[in-house]
């Protein structure tokens, strides 16, 4: 169970930063930063960069995704931006438009 949960219906008009896991089912009109796992649910929407240790995207992201460990784009994900992570999976049904850089995931 994530430390921070933004359920659907909640809108964060600003940046969200934490040192623990995040699960987002709502909207974030700003950056999402974590040193732990970031889970973006199917109804979620992030309008800026996402940073985390492990990032799993099932919703909409309009920004870059940086992960220190891995990035997973699940079915239903819509990512418009670059991905920087040492490991990446793109599931069937995910929509992705951007660059991929797997050389150094630490950024």
């Amino acid at each position, binding site marked *: 169970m994530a*430390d*921070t949960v933004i*359920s659907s219906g*909640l809108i964060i008009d600003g940046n*969200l930063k934490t040192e623990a896991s995040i699960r987002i089912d709502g909207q974030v009109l700003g950056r999402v930063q974590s040193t732990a796992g970031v889970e973006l649910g199917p109804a979620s929407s992030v309008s800026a960069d996402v940073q985390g240790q492990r990032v799993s995207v099932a919703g909409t992201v309009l920004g870059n995704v940086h992960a220190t460990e891995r990035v997973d784009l699940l079915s239903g994900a819509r990512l418009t931006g670059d991905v920087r992570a040492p490991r990446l999976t793109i599931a069937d049904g995910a929509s992705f438009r951007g660059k991929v850089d797997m050389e150094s995931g630490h950024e």
Partner: protein
Amino acid sequence: MNEERGRMSSVLGPTGLVLGNVQGQGDFEVRGRVQGDVVLSGRVLVAPGGLVLGTIEAQQITVSGTVRGDLIAEDGVEITGSGQVEGNVSSPRVAIEAGAKVRGHLRTGGEEAPAAVRGGKDLLAFAERAANAPEPDSLTAGLPAIPRDALSRDALPRRDAELIDSDEEVAPEPMRPFTAPPGGLRGGGLSGGGAAGRSVSEAAAPETRASGGKKRRRRRRGGDRGASIEGSGPETDASGTSAQHQDDARPEFLPPARPTRPSGPLPPTEGTQASPPAPARQGRDEPTPGRPTPGRPTPGRKAHGKKLPTFVKGARGHLRG
């Protein structure tokens, strides 16, 4: 911890920081820090250790952490013992536990402010209504209107000034004893002769209207009876104000119209009698005013000039002994 989270749909963890506003539907528990406003249609809980720097507007707000900003709730606000609030609280119900630290204005009564989620139009309409609405908890409700400039805040005792400034609903204190200024007093009002005071005095002191006329017997219902009626009585102007008005706190004019002693022979009066207004007012077949009648006590009638405690109902509604 999990069951706690189950009640609140959204949680901001202890290391979480939101730099911006939070809005929308649902509940929200703040265990971290929010630097911005929180406007929700559900419940907001600021857990111990949580911090919100901004206004919280929700259906129900519970504060166990720190809030530096206003709390506006449609349902109720609860501040527990570990809560600290620095801001105004506006809610129909407020519960503050012992140990809580609260600093700000509290408002429970009056129209509730619409939640911001309903839109700016409602807020404007509410502000208009609030500006035009009459004050329900006015300290002067029921009393004759007093010209505003007569009530200078500096003139009031300190506590009264606080009451006026405060938003709390408090039971109004009884008015301070009203001492008449010498030489000019008509009915109520600190500004003697003010329009409001005039209207009150006319109702309360009917006898002065009969300027120059016969003294008719009037049922005295209190009010100003200090006008000295000598002979035809003092000249009164249109407002009923008498230029020769004498303060009815003076002992010579104290005798009431109605006898307040049981019928029976009265003890002889002592000393010289000042002009007695009482017989004139009673309209009985009395000797002309100005002539004391010490040796003729009439059953049920008081001797002139004898100083008796009378209770005059002042225009402000209190009693003056």
